[in-house]
Protein backbone atom coordinates (compact mmCIF):
# COMPACT_ATOMS: atom_id res chain seq x y z
CA UNK A 1 0.00 0.00 0.00
CA UNK A 2 1.48 3.35 -1.07
CA UNK A 3 1.62 6.17 1.44
CA UNK A 4 -0.28 9.37 0.60
CA UNK A 5 2.00 12.20 -0.46
CA UNK A 6 -0.79 14.70 -0.01
CA UNK A 7 -3.97 14.59 2.04
CA UNK A 8 -6.57 17.29 1.50
CA UNK A 9 -9.42 17.34 4.02
CA UNK A 10 -12.57 19.36 3.43
CA UNK A 11 -10.69 22.38 2.03
CA UNK A 12 -12.73 25.48 1.36
CA UNK A 13 -11.11 28.56 -0.12
CA UNK A 14 -13.12 31.74 -0.35
CA UNK A 15 -12.22 34.99 -2.05
CA UNK A 16 -14.71 37.41 -0.54
CA UNK A 17 -18.10 35.83 -1.19
CA UNK A 18 -16.81 33.59 -3.98
CA UNK A 19 -15.81 30.06 -3.02
CA UNK A 20 -13.04 28.86 -5.35
CA UNK A 21 -12.76 25.51 -3.52
CA UNK A 22 -15.87 23.99 -1.95
CA UNK A 23 -14.98 21.20 0.44
CA UNK A 24 -12.25 19.39 -1.48
CA UNK A 25 -11.28 16.09 0.14
CA UNK A 26 -8.74 13.79 -1.51
CA UNK A 27 -5.66 11.66 -1.01
CA UNK A 28 -2.84 11.55 -3.53
CA UNK A 29 -0.34 8.72 -3.51
CA UNK A 30 3.44 9.12 -3.67
CA UNK A 31 5.20 8.55 -6.96
CA UNK A 32 2.16 9.04 -9.17
CA UNK A 33 1.35 11.48 -11.94
CA UNK A 34 -1.92 13.37 -11.58
CA UNK A 35 -3.47 15.45 -14.34
CA UNK A 36 -5.89 18.00 -12.93
CA UNK A 37 -8.53 18.94 -15.46
CA UNK A 38 -11.60 21.10 -15.59
CA UNK A 39 -13.15 24.19 -17.11
CA UNK A 40 -11.90 27.70 -16.43
CA UNK A 41 -12.87 28.71 -12.89
CA UNK A 42 -13.18 25.10 -11.72
CA UNK A 43 -10.62 25.71 -8.93
CA UNK A 44 -7.61 23.89 -10.42
CA UNK A 45 -5.11 26.70 -9.96
CA UNK A 46 -6.47 27.57 -6.51
CA UNK A 47 -6.03 23.94 -5.44
CA UNK A 48 -2.46 23.95 -6.74
CA UNK A 49 -1.70 27.25 -4.99
CA UNK A 50 -3.16 25.87 -1.76
CA UNK A 51 -0.93 22.79 -2.07
CA UNK A 52 2.06 25.07 -2.66
CA UNK A 53 1.22 27.08 0.46
CA UNK A 54 0.46 30.24 -1.52
CA UNK A 55 -3.28 30.24 -0.81
CA UNK A 56 -4.33 29.58 2.76
CA UNK A 57 -7.50 27.51 3.06
CA UNK A 58 -10.43 29.34 4.63
CA UNK A 59 -11.39 26.01 6.18
CA UNK A 60 -10.00 22.49 6.15
CA UNK A 61 -6.46 21.12 6.22
CA UNK A 62 -3.74 20.13 3.79
CA UNK A 63 -1.02 17.69 4.76
CA UNK A 64 2.04 17.22 2.55
CA UNK A 65 4.23 14.29 3.58
CA UNK A 66 2.73 14.73 7.06
CA UNK A 67 3.58 18.43 7.22
CA UNK A 68 1.80 21.71 6.54
CA UNK A 69 2.42 23.15 3.05
CA UNK A 70 4.64 25.86 4.56
CA UNK A 71 6.79 23.34 6.45
CA UNK A 72 6.98 21.06 3.42
CA UNK A 73 8.24 23.80 1.09
CA UNK A 74 11.63 22.10 0.58
CA UNK A 75 9.85 18.97 -0.69
CA UNK A 76 7.62 20.82 -3.16
CA UNK A 77 8.50 22.38 -6.50
CA UNK A 78 5.99 24.87 -7.90
CA UNK A 79 5.73 26.06 -11.48
CA UNK A 80 3.07 28.69 -12.07
CA UNK A 81 1.46 29.95 -15.24
CA UNK A 82 3.75 33.03 -15.23
CA UNK A 83 7.45 32.15 -15.35
CA UNK A 84 8.42 33.26 -11.79
CA UNK A 85 11.73 34.40 -13.29
CA UNK A 86 13.41 37.79 -13.57
CA UNK A 87 13.26 38.93 -17.20
CA UNK A 88 16.45 40.99 -16.98
CA UNK A 89 18.66 38.11 -15.81
CA UNK A 90 19.88 35.07 -17.73
CA UNK A 91 18.52 31.63 -16.94
CA UNK A 92 21.64 30.64 -15.00
CA UNK A 93 21.64 33.91 -13.04
CA UNK A 94 18.03 33.28 -12.09
CA UNK A 95 18.75 29.72 -11.02
CA UNK A 96 21.86 30.66 -9.04
CA UNK A 97 19.78 33.16 -7.08
CA UNK A 98 16.97 30.70 -6.39
CA UNK A 99 19.53 28.00 -5.48
CA UNK A 100 20.74 30.29 -2.70
CA UNK A 101 17.19 30.61 -1.37
CA UNK A 102 17.10 26.82 -1.02
CA UNK A 103 20.50 26.70 0.66
CA UNK A 104 22.21 25.16 -2.39
CA UNK A 105 25.28 27.30 -1.86
CA UNK A 106 28.32 25.28 -0.90
CA UNK A 107 31.44 26.98 -2.19
CA UNK A 108 29.62 28.54 -5.13
CA UNK A 109 30.86 25.83 -7.48
CA UNK A 110 28.29 23.36 -6.15
CA UNK A 111 25.57 25.94 -6.74
CA UNK A 112 26.66 26.51 -10.35
CA UNK A 113 27.12 22.79 -11.02
CA UNK A 114 23.62 22.00 -9.79
CA UNK A 115 22.11 24.86 -11.83
CA UNK A 116 23.92 23.77 -15.00
CA UNK A 117 22.85 20.17 -14.43
CA UNK A 118 19.20 21.18 -14.04
CA UNK A 119 19.32 23.46 -17.08
CA UNK A 120 20.72 20.60 -19.16
CA UNK A 121 18.08 18.22 -17.81
CA UNK A 122 15.31 20.40 -19.27
CA UNK A 123 17.08 20.55 -22.62
CA UNK A 124 18.55 24.06 -22.44
CA UNK A 125 22.12 25.27 -22.69
CA UNK A 126 23.66 26.61 -19.44
CA UNK A 127 26.00 28.80 -21.51
CA UNK A 128 23.06 30.82 -22.80
CA UNK A 129 23.68 34.40 -21.61
CA UNK A 130 20.55 35.93 -23.11
CA UNK A 131 18.15 37.48 -20.56
CA UNK A 132 15.11 35.34 -19.83
CA UNK A 133 12.89 38.15 -21.16
CA UNK A 134 14.19 37.34 -24.65
CA UNK A 135 13.43 33.60 -24.44
CA UNK A 136 10.78 31.95 -26.61
CA UNK A 137 7.71 30.68 -24.74
CA UNK A 138 8.96 27.10 -24.98
CA UNK A 139 12.35 28.01 -23.51
CA UNK A 140 10.65 30.05 -20.81
CA UNK A 141 8.49 27.09 -19.78
CA UNK A 142 11.54 24.82 -19.63
CA UNK A 143 13.51 27.33 -17.56
CA UNK A 144 10.52 27.72 -15.30
CA UNK A 145 10.46 23.93 -14.87
CA UNK A 146 14.20 24.02 -14.15
CA UNK A 147 13.57 26.51 -11.34
CA UNK A 148 10.84 24.28 -9.92
CA UNK A 149 13.07 21.16 -9.82
CA UNK A 150 16.24 22.96 -8.75
CA UNK A 151 16.08 21.73 -5.14
CA UNK A 152 15.17 18.18 -6.19
CA UNK A 153 11.66 18.18 -4.67
CA UNK A 154 9.66 15.01 -4.08
CA UNK A 155 6.45 16.68 -5.24
CA UNK A 156 6.01 18.81 -8.35
CA UNK A 157 3.07 21.17 -8.83
CA UNK A 158 2.86 22.44 -12.40
CA UNK A 159 0.26 24.94 -13.53
CA UNK A 160 -0.34 24.94 -17.29
CA UNK A 161 3.19 23.89 -18.29
CA UNK A 162 2.14 23.42 -21.93
CA UNK A 163 0.29 26.69 -22.44
CA UNK A 164 1.47 28.77 -25.43
CA UNK A 165 3.95 26.04 -26.31
CA UNK A 166 4.07 24.38 -29.74
CA UNK A 167 3.17 20.71 -29.94
CA UNK A 168 6.79 19.62 -30.43
CA UNK A 169 8.01 21.43 -27.30
CA UNK A 170 4.96 20.26 -25.36
CA UNK A 171 5.70 16.62 -26.29
CA UNK A 172 9.32 17.08 -25.18
CA UNK A 173 8.14 18.50 -21.86
CA UNK A 174 5.80 15.54 -21.40
CA UNK A 175 8.80 13.26 -21.98
CA UNK A 176 10.73 15.17 -19.30
CA UNK A 177 7.84 14.83 -16.86
CA UNK A 178 7.52 11.12 -17.59
CA UNK A 179 11.18 10.73 -16.66
CA UNK A 180 10.59 12.63 -13.42
CA UNK A 181 7.60 10.43 -12.56
CA UNK A 182 9.72 7.33 -13.24
CA UNK A 183 12.35 8.64 -10.85
CA UNK A 184 9.73 8.55 -8.06
CA UNK A 185 8.42 12.09 -7.96
CA UNK A 186 4.76 12.83 -7.35
CA UNK A 187 3.59 15.14 -10.11
CA UNK A 188 0.48 17.30 -10.41
CA UNK A 189 -0.17 19.00 -13.72
CA UNK A 190 -3.00 21.44 -14.23
CA UNK A 191 -3.74 21.55 -17.94
CA UNK A 192 -6.37 22.04 -20.60
CA UNK A 193 -4.41 19.76 -22.94
CA UNK A 194 -5.29 16.47 -21.28
CA UNK A 195 -4.69 14.42 -24.42
CA UNK A 196 -0.95 15.15 -24.12
CA UNK A 197 -0.88 13.26 -20.82
CA UNK A 198 -2.70 10.15 -22.02
CA UNK A 199 -0.46 7.22 -21.19
CA UNK A 200 1.70 9.35 -18.88
CA UNK A 201 -0.69 10.38 -16.11
CA UNK A 202 -1.68 7.69 -13.64
CA UNK A 203 -4.88 9.50 -12.81
CA UNK A 204 -7.06 12.21 -14.32
CA UNK A 205 -8.67 14.35 -11.62
CA UNK A 206 -11.68 16.29 -12.86
CA UNK A 207 -12.73 19.46 -11.09
CA UNK A 208 -15.94 21.41 -11.45
CA UNK A 209 -17.21 24.41 -9.48
CA UNK A 210 -14.52 24.07 -6.81
CA UNK A 211 -14.96 20.37 -6.21
CA UNK A 212 -13.32 17.16 -7.39
CA UNK A 213 -16.09 15.44 -9.32
CA UNK A 214 -14.25 12.36 -10.53
CA UNK A 215 -10.90 10.59 -10.61
CA UNK A 216 -10.24 8.20 -13.48
CA UNK A 217 -7.18 6.27 -14.66
CA UNK A 218 -8.05 7.15 -18.25
CA UNK A 219 -9.58 9.96 -20.24
CA UNK A 220 -13.28 9.10 -20.47
CA UNK A 221 -15.35 11.03 -22.99
CA UNK A 222 -18.51 11.26 -20.89
CA UNK A 223 -16.90 13.11 -17.98
CA UNK A 224 -17.58 16.77 -17.25
CA UNK A 225 -15.13 19.02 -19.06
CA UNK A 226 -14.04 16.28 -21.44
CA UNK A 227 -14.80 18.61 -24.29
CA UNK A 228 -11.80 20.69 -23.28
CA UNK A 229 -9.41 18.02 -24.46
Amino acid sequence: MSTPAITVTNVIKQFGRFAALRGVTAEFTSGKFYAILGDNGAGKTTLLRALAGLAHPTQGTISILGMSPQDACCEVGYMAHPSLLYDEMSGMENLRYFAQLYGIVGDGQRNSDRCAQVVRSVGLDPELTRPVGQYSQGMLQRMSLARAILHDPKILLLDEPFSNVDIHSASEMVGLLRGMRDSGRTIFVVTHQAALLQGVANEFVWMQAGQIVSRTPDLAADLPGAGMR
Partner: protein
Amino acid sequence: MNSLWSITLATLAKDIRLEWRSKDALNSMLFFSLLVVVIFSFSFDPLAEESRHIAGGLIWVAFLFAAVVALNQTWARELRNQVLDAYRVSPAPANALFLAKTLGNFIFVSVLETLMTPLFIVFYNLRALGPAWQLIPIALLGTWALVVNGTFFAAMSIRTRSREIMLPLLLFPISIPAVIAMVAGTTSILTGEDSAHFYIVLLLTYDVVFTTACLALFETVLQAE
Protein backbone atom coordinates in the same frame (compact mmCIF):
# COMPACT_ATOMS: atom_id res chain seq x y z
CA MET B 1 21.37 33.55 11.22
CA ASN B 2 23.94 32.66 8.60
CA SER B 3 21.13 31.79 6.22
CA LEU B 4 19.38 35.11 6.95
CA TRP B 5 22.46 37.13 6.05
CA SER B 6 23.51 34.99 3.09
CA ILE B 7 20.03 35.25 1.57
CA THR B 8 19.88 38.96 2.39
CA LEU B 9 23.17 39.50 0.58
CA ALA B 10 22.13 37.29 -2.36
CA THR B 11 18.86 39.21 -2.74
CA LEU B 12 20.62 42.55 -2.36
CA ALA B 13 23.17 41.58 -5.03
CA LYS B 14 20.32 40.48 -7.31
CA ASP B 15 18.46 43.79 -6.80
CA ILE B 16 21.59 45.86 -7.46
CA ARG B 17 22.24 43.81 -10.61
CA LEU B 18 18.66 44.35 -11.82
CA GLU B 19 18.85 48.07 -11.07
CA TRP B 20 22.23 48.35 -12.79
CA ARG B 21 20.73 46.78 -15.92
CA SER B 22 17.43 48.66 -15.97
CA LYS B 23 18.34 51.87 -14.05
CA ASP B 24 14.58 52.32 -13.56
CA ALA B 25 14.69 53.67 -10.02
CA LEU B 26 17.91 55.70 -10.19
CA ASN B 27 17.05 57.51 -13.44
CA SER B 28 13.55 58.41 -12.23
CA MET B 29 14.82 59.63 -8.87
CA LEU B 30 17.64 61.66 -10.38
CA PHE B 31 15.46 63.44 -12.92
CA PHE B 32 12.78 64.12 -10.34
CA SER B 33 15.25 65.58 -7.83
CA LEU B 34 16.98 67.61 -10.51
CA LEU B 35 13.66 69.14 -11.52
CA VAL B 36 12.86 69.99 -7.89
CA VAL B 37 16.24 71.72 -7.40
CA VAL B 38 15.96 73.74 -10.61
CA ILE B 39 12.29 74.69 -10.16
CA PHE B 40 12.76 75.71 -6.52
CA SER B 41 15.85 77.74 -7.36
CA PHE B 42 13.88 79.66 -10.00
CA SER B 43 10.81 80.00 -7.77
CA PHE B 44 12.71 81.47 -4.82
CA ASP B 45 15.59 83.84 -4.89
CA PRO B 46 16.70 83.73 -1.27
CA LEU B 47 19.63 85.46 0.37
CA ALA B 48 22.33 83.21 1.83
CA GLU B 49 20.85 83.63 5.31
CA GLU B 50 17.34 82.75 4.15
CA SER B 51 18.69 79.76 2.20
CA ARG B 52 20.08 78.28 5.41
CA HIS B 53 16.62 78.40 6.95
CA ILE B 54 14.70 76.83 4.06
CA ALA B 55 17.27 74.48 2.50
CA GLY B 56 16.79 71.71 5.06
CA GLY B 57 13.09 71.51 4.23
CA LEU B 58 13.64 71.69 0.46
CA ILE B 59 16.35 69.02 0.44
CA TRP B 60 14.47 66.49 2.52
CA VAL B 61 11.11 67.03 0.83
CA ALA B 62 12.83 66.52 -2.55
CA PHE B 63 14.52 63.32 -1.32
CA LEU B 64 11.31 62.05 0.29
CA PHE B 65 9.31 62.44 -2.93
CA ALA B 66 12.14 61.00 -5.02
CA ALA B 67 12.48 58.02 -2.67
CA VAL B 68 8.84 57.12 -3.27
CA VAL B 69 9.73 56.46 -6.93
CA ALA B 70 12.42 53.96 -5.92
CA LEU B 71 10.22 52.37 -3.28
CA ASN B 72 7.46 51.66 -5.79
CA GLN B 73 10.01 50.17 -8.21
CA THR B 74 11.39 47.84 -5.54
CA TRP B 75 8.30 45.68 -5.42
CA ALA B 76 7.06 46.30 -8.95
CA ARG B 77 9.86 44.12 -10.31
CA GLU B 78 8.84 41.34 -7.92
CA LEU B 79 5.31 41.43 -9.30
CA ARG B 80 6.37 41.00 -12.94
CA ASN B 81 6.02 37.28 -13.75
CA GLN B 82 4.86 36.86 -10.11
CA VAL B 83 8.47 36.26 -9.03
CA LEU B 84 7.48 37.05 -5.46
CA ASP B 85 5.61 33.72 -5.38
CA ALA B 86 8.90 31.93 -6.09
CA TYR B 87 10.30 33.54 -2.94
CA ARG B 88 7.16 32.73 -0.94
CA VAL B 89 7.31 29.01 -1.77
CA SER B 90 11.00 28.81 -0.83
CA PRO B 91 12.29 28.19 2.71
CA ALA B 92 14.06 31.59 2.69
CA PRO B 93 13.17 33.78 5.69
CA ALA B 94 10.78 36.66 4.98
CA ASN B 95 13.00 39.12 6.85
CA ALA B 96 15.92 38.40 4.52
CA LEU B 97 13.81 39.77 1.67
CA PHE B 98 12.78 42.80 3.71
CA LEU B 99 16.33 43.58 4.82
CA ALA B 100 17.68 43.18 1.28
CA LYS B 101 15.01 45.47 -0.16
CA THR B 102 15.57 48.05 2.60
CA LEU B 103 19.35 47.97 2.17
CA GLY B 104 18.94 48.23 -1.59
CA ASN B 105 16.69 51.25 -1.29
CA PHE B 106 19.06 52.76 1.26
CA ILE B 107 21.92 52.43 -1.23
CA PHE B 108 19.88 53.85 -4.14
CA VAL B 109 18.60 56.84 -2.14
CA SER B 110 22.08 57.44 -0.68
CA VAL B 111 23.55 57.51 -4.19
CA LEU B 112 20.88 60.04 -5.14
CA GLU B 113 21.67 62.18 -2.09
CA THR B 114 25.40 62.05 -2.83
CA LEU B 115 24.82 63.23 -6.37
CA MET B 116 22.22 65.88 -5.56
CA THR B 117 23.67 67.47 -2.42
CA PRO B 118 26.46 69.31 -4.31
CA LEU B 119 23.81 70.75 -6.62
CA PHE B 120 21.77 71.99 -3.66
CA ILE B 121 24.90 73.59 -2.22
CA VAL B 122 25.64 75.38 -5.49
CA PHE B 123 22.07 76.44 -6.31
CA TYR B 124 21.34 77.72 -2.79
CA ASN B 125 24.80 78.96 -1.98
CA LEU B 126 24.90 76.93 1.22
CA ARG B 127 27.58 76.96 3.88
CA ALA B 128 27.07 75.34 7.25
CA LEU B 129 27.65 77.59 10.25
CA GLY B 130 27.31 74.68 12.70
CA PRO B 131 29.30 71.41 12.88
CA ALA B 132 28.92 70.13 9.28
CA TRP B 133 29.99 66.57 10.16
CA GLN B 134 26.69 66.14 12.00
CA LEU B 135 24.93 66.24 8.63
CA ILE B 136 26.33 62.74 7.99
CA PRO B 137 24.49 60.98 10.87
CA ILE B 138 21.37 62.98 10.07
CA ALA B 139 21.54 61.93 6.41
CA LEU B 140 22.23 58.27 7.22
CA LEU B 141 19.61 57.94 9.96
CA GLY B 142 17.06 60.05 8.07
CA THR B 143 17.49 58.02 4.89
CA TRP B 144 17.11 54.78 6.82
CA ALA B 145 13.93 56.16 8.44
CA LEU B 146 12.46 56.88 5.00
CA VAL B 147 13.41 53.61 3.37
CA VAL B 148 12.60 51.23 6.21
CA ASN B 149 9.00 52.43 6.46
CA GLY B 150 8.81 53.02 2.73
CA THR B 151 9.88 49.47 1.91
CA PHE B 152 7.40 48.08 4.41
CA PHE B 153 4.44 50.14 3.23
CA ALA B 154 5.34 49.60 -0.43
CA ALA B 155 5.15 45.85 0.28
CA MET B 156 1.76 46.37 1.92
CA SER B 157 0.40 48.33 -1.00
CA ILE B 158 1.71 46.17 -3.88
CA ARG B 159 -1.48 44.18 -4.16
CA THR B 160 -3.74 47.24 -4.08
CA ARG B 161 -5.09 48.59 -7.33
CA SER B 162 -3.69 52.13 -6.92
CA ARG B 163 -0.41 51.36 -5.21
CA GLU B 164 1.39 54.49 -6.50
CA ILE B 165 -1.13 56.64 -4.58
CA MET B 166 -1.40 54.24 -1.65
CA LEU B 167 2.29 54.38 -0.75
CA PRO B 168 2.54 58.15 -0.11
CA LEU B 169 -0.79 58.05 1.73
CA LEU B 170 0.58 55.45 4.13
CA LEU B 171 4.19 56.58 4.25
CA PHE B 172 4.04 60.35 4.62
CA PRO B 173 1.94 60.57 7.81
CA ILE B 174 4.05 57.99 9.63
CA SER B 175 7.26 59.70 8.46
CA ILE B 176 6.31 63.08 9.92
CA PRO B 177 8.38 62.70 13.15
CA ALA B 178 11.42 61.61 11.13
CA VAL B 179 10.98 64.38 8.55
CA ILE B 180 10.66 66.99 11.30
CA ALA B 181 13.85 65.69 12.92
CA MET B 182 15.71 65.62 9.58
CA VAL B 183 14.60 69.14 8.58
CA ALA B 184 15.10 70.70 12.01
CA GLY B 185 18.44 68.95 12.49
CA THR B 186 19.71 70.05 9.07
CA THR B 187 18.50 73.61 9.59
CA SER B 188 20.12 73.85 13.02
CA ILE B 189 23.47 72.73 11.55
CA LEU B 190 23.23 75.09 8.56
CA THR B 191 22.29 78.10 10.72
CA GLY B 192 24.48 77.16 13.67
CA GLU B 193 21.77 78.46 15.99
CA ASP B 194 21.02 75.22 17.80
CA SER B 195 22.48 71.80 18.57
CA ALA B 196 21.41 68.92 16.30
CA HIS B 197 22.18 66.37 19.00
CA PHE B 198 18.53 66.01 20.06
CA TYR B 199 17.39 65.38 16.47
CA ILE B 200 20.08 62.74 15.92
CA VAL B 201 18.93 60.88 19.03
CA LEU B 202 15.30 61.26 17.91
CA LEU B 203 16.12 59.79 14.48
CA LEU B 204 18.08 56.94 16.04
CA THR B 205 15.14 56.09 18.33
CA TYR B 206 12.69 56.33 15.43
CA ASP B 207 14.87 54.00 13.32
CA VAL B 208 15.21 51.39 16.06
CA VAL B 209 11.46 51.39 16.83
CA PHE B 210 10.28 51.22 13.23
CA THR B 211 12.94 48.76 12.04
CA THR B 212 11.94 46.40 14.85
CA ALA B 213 8.23 46.81 14.12
CA CYS B 214 8.70 46.28 10.38
CA LEU B 215 10.82 43.15 10.92
CA ALA B 216 8.24 41.77 13.33
CA LEU B 217 5.35 42.34 10.92
CA PHE B 218 6.88 41.70 7.51
CA GLU B 219 6.21 37.97 7.33
CA THR B 220 2.48 38.65 7.76
CA VAL B 221 2.62 41.20 4.95
CA LEU B 222 4.55 38.86 2.66
CA GLN B 223 2.21 35.92 3.19
CA ALA B 224 -0.96 38.02 2.86
CA GLU B 225 -3.10 37.10 -0.16
